């Protein structure tokens, strides 16, 4: 796994002082599994991530190919592509998000029940990709909704999508239900309704959701 994906060294969880890691391994060797409720819930959630049946463009065809016989996303428990956002917990943004489609995508994201995750699949969903210079193309979906895993490629192979899904399952499994980096849906400030942009005269109003999108500033070294 690339280093960026490995979870940063977890600082001790609140209940860690009761049983140390070595003791847990020792118990496990004797066949006694010691775990926390949070781990079981996270394991259950990560093994049954139901994506929304939602495809935008060419990456959607690769997403469908990933759910077909040869790559079979069913092995990971996610072949149930739920058509209604109410029953889905993963939004795979697969394809170019145009400005005419952006309000719909944000509205779909708002309609999904809470422990929801988002995969930006393909160059267009990450940053507008090859169509970046178009006037009707949103420069990446992370301007309006928070994204958990970015899968670059145009289109990424079905295996790359499965790799991304494994990354997401890893993230869900190591989610914290308390402490500083608590899971996004449990954060106190987390509002479940993200601002839906309106259609303006020349562009979307607002062009990006400030709560979600903080673009790192450009540093120009003037000397070179």
């Amino acid at each position, binding site marked *: 796994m690339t280093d960026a994906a490995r979870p940063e060294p977890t600082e001790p969880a609140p209940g860690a002082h009761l049983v140390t890691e070595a003791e847990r391994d020792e118990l496990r060797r004797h066949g006694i599994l010691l775990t926390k409720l949070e781990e079981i819930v996270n394991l259950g959630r990560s093994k049954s991530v139901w994506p929304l049946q939602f495809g935008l463009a060419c990456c959607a065809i690769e997403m469908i190919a990933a759910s077909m016989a040869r790559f079979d996303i069913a092995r990971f428990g996610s072949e149930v592509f739920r058509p209604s956002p109410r029953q889905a917990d993963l939004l795979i943004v697969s394809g170019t998000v145009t400005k005419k489609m952006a309000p719909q995508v944000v509205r779909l994201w708002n309609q999904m029940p809470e422990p929801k995750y988002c995969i930006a699949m393909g160059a267009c969903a990450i940053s507008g990709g090859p169509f970046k210079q178009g006037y009707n193309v949103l420069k990446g979906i992370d301007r309006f909704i928070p994204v958990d*895993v970015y*899968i*670059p490629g145009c289109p990424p192979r079905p295996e790359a999508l499965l790799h991304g899904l494994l990354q997401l399952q890893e993230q869900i499994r190591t989610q914290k239900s308390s402490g500083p980096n608590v899971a996004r849906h449990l954060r106190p400030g987390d509002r479940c309704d993200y601002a839906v942009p309106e259609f303006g005269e020349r562009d979307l109003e607002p062009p990006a959701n400030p709560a979600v999108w903080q673009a790192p500033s450009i540093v120009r070294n003037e000397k070179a």
Partner: protein
Amino acid sequence: MLGSGLLQGLKVTAKNLVGSFHDPERLTTLEYPEQKAKLPENYRNFPFLVSENATDPMGTLRCVGCQICEKECPPQCIYIEKSKDKKPDATGKMQVYPVVFDIDTSVCMSCQICVEVCPFEAIKMDQVFEIATKDRFTALLLDRNQLAKPNSYYHEIHPTEAAEVDARLLAERKAAEEKAKAAATPKPAVAPTPSPTATAPKPPEAPAAGGTPAP
């Protein structure tokens, strides 16, 4: 009879159900993380910069910063910044080298036009596709250090193409040396004809003006 078509359909699905237990044709699943598909040799994902040897990848980049690939790239995801000074390249000639060579993999559409138009065989297509990350700005913007990979790696992923490229480069270097020897020995006799630059004239026409400095 009314139900005959339905029964035929059931027969086909039953054949597939039973077949999936013994006939490999009927169970075509590749269990991804454990079994990985053998990628065909021509497969391309994101570009990488070829360097002569693995010991000092930054020092022996083939790229001379001619910015042809930056102009030709349709989504414009390559950013090059030339150096002010020069350093000797593989054939010993003094060449400019790129100080900054960024490829934004969140914009690149892996169309390999940069490989086609590069006169120096400096940029080739890589086969790594497992690069899903959590943060977009630092992990997906590959800079010169992450892009440079040795020629041996190029031989690993594209064997036949790498062999062709090496043969052609070898032939040119030999031709360049003979010309240098010929130019060096009978100095006064013949004015050095403006031989084609030491570049690999892959496409027959002359490289873009202003790109490579005249010898």
